[in-house]
């Protein structure tokens, strides 16, 4: 009958019973992401602290899920140290529930403005908390608040422009 096969199966299961387990106790322990992992977005600034984004809208057009909405504004007289060119984004919203983290916006941006980082975006209880506005996305001016994306910058990878 099947008894020898059953006993062999039982031995396999018992062997697995005593083996080391592969569980990762999140959130106390995490696993490493690769350097090209596509996580939460960030709007970068240049070395002088001016925002890179000029509200050209290429990221919004490139997004396959239509998650980005931009409202552009003209730069006023005293704001030269805040924005690089005459056009800037007054409202820049990314709907995280629509975003599929494909990275096409990162590839489409001509101004090195939007990048995806390795942070995982956190979960929440309400849908409206997931529309990330510009103040949540843009990085801070101080050096300590900058997010390092040097491993992702175009031109560092071989074969890129």
């Amino acid at each position, binding site marked *: 009958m099947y008894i020898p096969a*059953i006993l062999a*199966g*039982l031995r396999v*299961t018992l062997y697995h*019973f005593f083996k080391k*387990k592969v569980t990762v106790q999140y959130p106390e322990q995490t696993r490493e992401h690769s350097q090209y992992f596509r996580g939460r977005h960030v709007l970068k600034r240049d070395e002088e602290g001016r925002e890179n984004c000029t509200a050209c809208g290429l990221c919004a057009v490139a997004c396959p899920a239509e998650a980005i909405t931009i409202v552009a504004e003209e730069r006023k007289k005293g704001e030269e140290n805040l924005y690089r060119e005459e056009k800037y984004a007054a409202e820049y919203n990314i709907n995280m529930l629509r975003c599929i983290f494909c990275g096409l916006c990162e590839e489409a941006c001509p101004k090195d403005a939007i990048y995806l980082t390795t942070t995982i975006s956190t979960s929440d209880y309400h849908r409206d908390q997931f529309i990330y506005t510009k103040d949540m996305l843009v990085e801070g001016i101080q050096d300590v608040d900058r997010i390092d994306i040097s491993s992702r910058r175009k031109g560092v990878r071989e074969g890129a422009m």
Partner: protein
Amino acid sequence: MELIIFKICLVLVLFLLSITIAAYSTFSERKVAAFMQDRIGPNRAGPFGILQPVADGIKMIMKEEIMPADSNKLLFILGPAISMITALMTSAVIPWGPDITIGGQKVQLQVADINVGILYIMGVLSLGVYGIMIGGWASNNKFALLGAVRASTQMISYELAMGMSIVAIIMTTGSLSLGNMVEGQDGWHGMAWNIFLQPLGFLIFLICAFAETNRTPFDLPESETELIGGYHTEYSSMKLGFYLFAEYINMFLSSAVITCLYFGGYNFPYMDIVQANTGEILFALICFGVFLSKIIFFIFFFMWVRWTIPRFRFDQLMNLGWKVLLPLSIVNMLITGAVILYNQ
């Protein structure tokens, strides 16, 4: 008078013990399953997840009770009740330890030492089929009914082979009472267990016990992939809790019966030496502890088999019950009878 108080205390202790062991069986099922699948089970509720059954119980109580619209209300409630009652009733005739003396009277650590013990267990087991059948019928759901019909056919078929292998044990022991059977297994310094006399009978009884408790590989009635939930599809909250709980209590008591019949109940090697050297109550507690550890091993064995072997198809199940196990148990009976006659 003291006897009645003692018996009531014993019943309460047994009730609490059954429920606690069944609750922690649910927890250890998840842990054992996880360990065999190279992962850790639940470990967030309390240290090492020990409070998980408490959390599950509270969840079950707090859920909404859904009754299907056209179902038979009385039968709908009666189904899990019967399952639970018959599951708990079996624990009345199992000997939990040797006799102790309380207040000058010799008391048995058994709620009812009737002299048809094993027959009572078979009877109550047959009543358990009613719980499933009624639950499946009262759900007003074709799939639940199909699951219930499968369950009852399976349980009836395997009861026969179970009964036959018990007949072989009765022939060697000469008594139907479980207390006498366990006492009869204490020769050879407590190692004259029935499994050495009846290995084939043990195998048959074990397979039938798997089928009776609806446990994989015979868990077609509640197979999740085929029938969604089988007979307990339409149940929610505490009624479902009762069905699942009754299954674990059944598993606990089947292990207890297997241990009593074949593995010597509360006997352990060199027990006569230990008995001569310790007080009576301490010895009874030691025997009880040995019994419990054997039961826990069998519960682990039930779970071990569940996560190893795939499910039987229904015609394979019937084939096994009627065409393989029943003739084997009859052959077992014949061999036992022949050996007994030869030795006379």
